[in-house]
């Protein structure tokens, strides 16, 4: 069997070092914890109960920091909700900044285009930790910005350790991952199609919706996934930009495996987060009813290839 020979190493690796660990993690989430926080029998639903235990119906409206309408309250409910909300918002902001940039790059003359591409490629390939550290270094209480402000006789400002700082860090960190796939799709977009749509009576909005959007959707999809998934699981950004004061799921999970050890509970939260992410990414997939076609996969493979080279 030649096919089996080609498949075997990859299938083995993926199975043993990806799926089995995930299955063990899922299994552990139904175990109790021992005195040190490691998993031990008996089986229990305690870890999931812990997450939903304090959820109660408590409708409230507050005007602090914008209008907030809440129906339910609960420590972990709020943690999950905050994480999803913050990641979605950061993905949207990143998209709104990245789209004009990618559009501008795609319409540049090829000489400048390569230069612009090179300028996106460098942060794309630079270590995420190093870049987040650079941003934090700049915004620090005693960092360059505040030194400059006090030299000008102004009050120093507190820029770090707020949810807004986390948002800034996520947008900063993920921008190249959104610009590059969008650019890849826009670069090969045939602009005469927009003109053709206009000639046929479509206004700009309709031409964008019906012609451009379907054709750039692979890049849009790749960029959104590459931004949303790291955002919801973010650990570095939450620690460096948020100082650990605003907790997000990824950070909370990591803590169960380092600071306050509770492996079963951490596993339960991980499993829930994975379900959320898969669901969200699934919702983003176009032509969902048709399933994943060979062509769309190949197209996405090409998008990735062009981005990576």
């Amino acid at each position, binding site marked *: 069997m030649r096919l089996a020979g*080609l498949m075997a190493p990859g299938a083995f690796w993926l199975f043993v070092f990806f799926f089995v660990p995930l299955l063990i993690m899922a299994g552990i989430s139904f175990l109790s914890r021992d005195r040190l926080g490691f998993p031990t029998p008996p089986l229990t639903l305690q870890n999931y109960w812990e997450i939903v235990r304090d959820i109660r119906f408590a409708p409230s409206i507050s005007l602090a920091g914008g209008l907030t309408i809440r129906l339910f309250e609960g420590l972990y409910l709020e943690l999950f909700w905050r994480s999803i909300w913050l990641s979605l918002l950061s993905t949207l902001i990143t998209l709104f900044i990245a789209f004009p940039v990618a559009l501008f790059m795609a319409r540049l003359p090829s000489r400048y285009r390569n230069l612009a591409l090179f300028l996106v490629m460098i942060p794309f390939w630079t270590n995420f930790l190093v870049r987040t550290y650079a941003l934090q270094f700049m915004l620090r209480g005693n960092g360059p910005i505040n030194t400059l402000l006090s030299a000008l006789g102004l009050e120093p400002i507190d820029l770090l350790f707020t949810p807004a700082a986390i948002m800034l860090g996520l947008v900063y960190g993920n921008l190249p991952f959104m610009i590059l796939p969008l650019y890849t799709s826009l670069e090969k977009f045939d602009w005469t199609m927009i003109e053709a749509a206009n000639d046929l009576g479509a206004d700009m909005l309709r031409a964008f919706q019906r012609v451009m959007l379907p054709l750039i959707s692979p890049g849009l999809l790749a960029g959104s996934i590459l931004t949303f998934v790291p955002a919801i699981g973010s650990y570095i950004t939450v620690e460096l930009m948020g100082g650990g004061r605003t907790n997000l799921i990824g950070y909370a999970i990591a803590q169960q495996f380092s600071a306050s050890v509770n492996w079963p509970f951490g596993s339960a939260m991980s499993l829930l987060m994975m379900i959320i992410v898969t669901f969200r*990414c699934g919702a983003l997939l176009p032509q969902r009813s048709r399933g994943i076609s060979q062509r769309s996969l190949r197209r996405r493979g090409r998008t990735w290839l062009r981005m990576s080279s």
Partner: protein
Amino acid sequence: MASDVILIGERSEIKPRPRKESRGIGLGRFALVTITFFTFAFLYVPIAILIAFSFNSARTGATWQSFSLQWYERVFSNARILEAAANSLIVATLATIGSVIIGTLMAMAMERYQFRAKLAWDALLYLPVIVPEIVMGISLLIFFAAINLSRGIVTLVISHIAFCMPFVYLTMRARLADFDKSLEEAAQDLGADEWTTFRRITLPLLMPGIISSALLAFTLSLDDFVISFFVTGVGSQTLPVYIWGQIRRGITPEINAISTLMLLLSIALVIITQLIQRRQRA
């Protein structure tokens, strides 16, 4: 919807229209230029400041004192930093070799053979790309604890191969889709056996793709922090894990110097990739 697009495309070929010049310096164009300029400034200012302050002699880093290379000297005389850098390079090299071989074979199997459950495999191979790093990190931590494998270089290499492989697979899959199979058939018609065909025809033709995916895997491995953080052992810290520890401990001007060096390495890798691309096209 798709048929609409094709129709529109054909129509525009029949009746080409000169582009309206008015959109050249319009408000929209001005907005695009402004946004792009500020976005690049946003991306590069923190990096530029970091590089500048890596040459600052002051320990606190906030105020500029004088030009100095002392932090670079510190980096190169710090045994722990050098050890971490060596670990990173060893892990990245082994992970690259492993993931490129496994991923390329996988791509060949998926591209050339039809079999049952192929679609399911296709979807499964995408899963590692959309599972958050932190979940992969902790599940591997649990797994290595469960099989009693002590954490170190071995666990790092195993994990890095696992997360690099899908990216190699995706890259090679796209390359193989453009592969001209008739060249292989011609070689076999001329009497080459299967191994010779692979060695003399398939492999050289796939080489550009293999090099691209190797550079990709190498960079991914070198950059990884989250997964490494959970599967690393006491004596086997990689560079990002070491940097993390130092940042959390407080002010360490050496970190600015290491970061600048890592940045230079990334730039070098980007340039190498670009050069390879250009040579391929030529």
